[in-house]
């Protein structure tokens, strides 16, 4: 896989979402480069999840998403990897990690015999995230951290141009969170992709983000963590951060 070169640019242009007469998002524009971790913060109801759904094309929106390779200045169709906040699982459910992974990347029906080539391929990719021994486990029986690693592994196969993670550390313990950010760091430096992360955890955003975007129906403030966290706009919404 290619290392981050800083020459790929994802432009999210003028995204607007209206549901009925309610304006959920207005004129949101975000530019990000590969090798960059952008963290979107904002209060509940600020439109963070809606923005992700708009970027993924799940809901109707105005504006567009353009991906350009600045090396040769060609606009390409963007490949997006997505790590959901939670998935619909129950304990002991009859879906193994292989079933979920194979469903995501292959058309060979998972209710038929296991495909050996595919199985090896998945196992190898899981190994990057230290999750290869989970392959035959039920996804309902994984711990929060294990599930996280599996979902990130899925989202990064094939390597996306843009990786989107929705509030991924909620409900995880300190070690889990530390592991998570070291994985993000690894992806950021070793792979050629931009990363957008939606987070409630302001401390973590401050510590790890290259760029912070404060969202409240529109982009209120963006810049380096220090710029945003010391701004008046931030203090108006979250108060003083220690």
């Amino acid at each position, binding site marked *: 896989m290619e290392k981050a070169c800083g020459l790929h640019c994802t432009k999210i242009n003028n995204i607007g979402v209206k549901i009925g007469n309610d304006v959920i998002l207005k004129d949101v524009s975000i530019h990000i480069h590969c090798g960059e971790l952008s963290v979107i913060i904002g209060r509940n109801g600020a439109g963070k999840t809606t923005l992700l759904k708009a970027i*993924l094309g799940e809901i109707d929106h105005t504006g567009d998403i353009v991906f350009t390779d600045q090396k040769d200045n060609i606009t390409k169709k963007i490949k997006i990897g997505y790590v959901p906040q939670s998935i619909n699982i129950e304990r002991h459910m009859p879906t193994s990690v292989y079933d*979920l992974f194979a*469903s995501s990347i292959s058309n060979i*029906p998972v*209710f038929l015999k296991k495909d050996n080539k595919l199985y090896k391929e998945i196992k190898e990719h899981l190994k990057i995230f230290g999750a290869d021994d989970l392959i035959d486990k*039920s996804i309902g029986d994984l711990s929060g951290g294990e599930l996280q690693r599996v979902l990130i592994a899925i989202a990064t196969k094939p390597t996306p141009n843009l990786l989107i993670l929705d509030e991924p550390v909620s409900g995880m313990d300190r070690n889990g969170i530390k592991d998570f950010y070291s994985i993000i760091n690894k992806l950021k430096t070793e792979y050629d992709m931009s990363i957008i992360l939606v987070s409630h955890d302001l401390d973590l955003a401050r510590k790890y983000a290259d760029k912070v975007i404060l969202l409240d129906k529109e982009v209120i403030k963006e810049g380096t963590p220090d710029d945003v966290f010391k701004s008046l706009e931030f203090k108006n919404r979250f108060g003083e951060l220690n």
Partner: protein
Amino acid sequence: MGVIDSILEIILPFEFMNYEFMKNALIALVLIAPIFAILGTMIVNNKMAFFSDALGHSALTGIALGSLIGITNMNIGMIIFAIGFALLLNHVKNKTTYGADTIISVFSSIAIALGLAILAQTGNFNQYSSYLVGDILSISDLEILYVFIIAIVVIVFWYFSFNKLNLISINTTLAKSRGIKTRKIDNIFSILIAIVVMISIRWIGILLINSLLILPAASSRNIAKNMRWYHLYAVIFSLFSGIAGLITSYYFNIPTGPMIVIISGVIYFITLVVKGKIKGK
């Protein structure tokens, strides 16, 4: 049918196989049971049990409306109505923020009430009351042909779309991010459930049809550890309860539909006990 008949007589050398209606019932069950089982796997995973139940109830409205406007082929009237009903349910479910179960329950109640009201008004109720419990022994060659065609359609859809369906059921946005047309797949799945339910409802019955969709899959889910076992167990349970139900109903003179459901229910509780043993709490 001649070839199939003679094969059946060789495999099952029982006295009841001398009766045409038993042979037909058996063929229909062997075709439809696996279809119920595989559709059921995703109905159970998606927590759509209520949805398929409402679809069954909508059959009554379909019959009533059909009789009102004078459609002679009940199957066509019911199928068209059920497809419309399923798509409408899907649409409303996607548009509202209420719990889906409430919406579905509203639709289901209205469907039943409307059906009963129209049938009572037109004086047709007695003629169609057999739809409530169904009569598998009255299945005709033409209906077996319908079952055969829909079975093929479901299997083809399952082969090409199951992975997509599986991903949608785990997380819709995740499915969307992999370029899956989630609405389209979801609608096709609902339409197929509607058609299968409508084609089978005359011989399974409105009151029992949902248990045949849910029970084999729910039993299998208790003990299966991945998608392959989930499907395999569901198909086995469904076939076993179908055939065993037909045979016992013949010897004990009990209606076939209820007998199949009772056997499915017993299997469910056995798997529940087994689950406690193998999977722990």
